[in-house]
């Protein structure tokens, strides 16, 4: 039914999310930096002063974990709530519904860019430099985006029918925090869980980021394949479920 300019629509929806989020804040974009910095300070204190972690470049090590996790957690959460929060739009304007959760996920990308800037800052102060393997990062993050979009589509659609979904997502995020190697290294994971760990796209991204940023080496092919496989699977499942559920959005919103 809807014939129009998808790119222009997506752009405007992303801008809307973005403007609404920041317009009424006095610190605005600064929050994107403040949040990881505070987390970093706390972890740094706990894990180098109390637990005395032997990891080199601890701040960078942590940032490689926090960035993917934070991005996923925020995008998943906002994506899940997106359809219900934009009920006015869904009920009154015949836009293609898929665009709403996808725009909500993409509106988090600027955060990520700012936080990557922070990471580069830490990198340079630590005396490391950007290496050739950084070329992997756009691909890695794109796969991550595909995965998050899949999750957002899936859960935003379910959230229309079962509003408890967002609480499930909140709890799941909490569990995920411990299942992603944020402040422990992959080598500490028992061997029999290692294979399974790599199927978690967030964990896979963290591992790949550490390979690239800290060890200046390419992520393994197996890891890349697992990440690609799960991301595409998630997007496919998300689209499929969303298509099935969207005809009744109107009645349930």
């Amino acid at each position, binding site marked *: *039914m*809807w*014939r*129009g*300019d998808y790119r*222009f*629509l997506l*752009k*405007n*929806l992303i*801008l*809307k999310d973005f*403007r*609404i989020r920041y*317009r*009424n804040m006095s610190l605005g974009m600064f929050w994107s930096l403040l949040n990881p910095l505070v987390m970093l300070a706390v972890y740094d204190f706990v894990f180098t002063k109390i637990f005395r972690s032997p990891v080199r470049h601890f701040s960078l090590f942590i940032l490689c974990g926090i960035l993917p996790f934070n991005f996923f957690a925020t995008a998943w959460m906002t994506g899940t709530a997106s359809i219900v929060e934009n009920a*006015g*739009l*869904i*009920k*009154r*304007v*015949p*836009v293609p519904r898929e665009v709403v959760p996808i725009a909500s996920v993409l509106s988090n990308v600027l955060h990520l860019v700012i936080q990557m800037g922070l990471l580069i800052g830490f990198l340079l102060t630590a005396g490391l430099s950007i290496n050739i393997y950084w070329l992997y990062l756009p691909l890695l993050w794109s796969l991550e985006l595909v995965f998050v979009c899949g999750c957002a589509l899936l859960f935003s659609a379910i959230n229309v*029918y*079962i509003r408890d979904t967002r609480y499930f997502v909140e709890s799941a995020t909490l569990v995920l925090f411990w299942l992603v190697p944020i402040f422990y290294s992959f080598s500490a994971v028992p061997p029999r869980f290692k294979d399974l760990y790599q199927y978690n796209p967030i964990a896979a991204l963290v591992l790949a980021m550490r390979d690239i940023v800290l060890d200046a080496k390419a992520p393994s092919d197996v890891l890349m394949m697992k990440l690609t496989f799960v991301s595409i699977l998630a997007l496919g499942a998300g689209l499929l479920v969303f298509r099935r559920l969207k*005809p*009744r959005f*109107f*009645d*349930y919103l």
Partner: protein
Amino acid sequence: MSQHLASVLRSRPYSRFRALKGVSFEVAPGESLAVIGANGAGKSTLLSLVTGLTKPDKGIVTVNGRVAALLELGSGFHPDLTGMENIFLNASLLGFTQKRTRALADEIVEFAGVRDFIHEPLRTYSQGMVVRLAFSVAVNVDPDVLIIDEVLAVGDAEFQTRCRDRIHGYRRAGKTFLCVSHNKPSLLSLCDRAMWLDHGEMMMCGPIQDVFDAYEGRSALAKGAE
């Protein structure tokens, strides 16, 4: 909770209530149709179906061409965005390209008559200004079918005249107009046909004066009976 879950899983809507039953009609290009009836008669559901927001459980709806619908005061508008930002957002929702929006933005602002406030957040606007802006965006999309649900009554007299002129010009251009309202004079001036809905059933569809006579006659009868 478990009851709700069960009803979701069986993929049944909340109730077996039918908003519309056996309603069948056609509107030709250049025609304009008013939909009248008491609250809860199914008028808004009808417009939602034509707009393509929801699909009928039974039956089919066929619309040829681009539809622009104003179903609620400032739907798709956000109070924290400025007037101009809302114009761009709404234009994109209605299917505009960026280029056309840029080209038309001036005319939209001009028609709405809110130039002095266009870079202020929408929450500072009066209701009338929001409606004027929303209407201005919708008519400037140049849709083939324009659908309006009870929002015209809000603007001031001068703006209402301008809207009427615009809709008349629009119909002369061979476009189709659908409208729900309780405001008889504005319906009489804008539409030539009317459909009367009552509890989801079509009581009558024909020349607007005849339908209004029958509708008002029946309302008077119902009052007399009480």
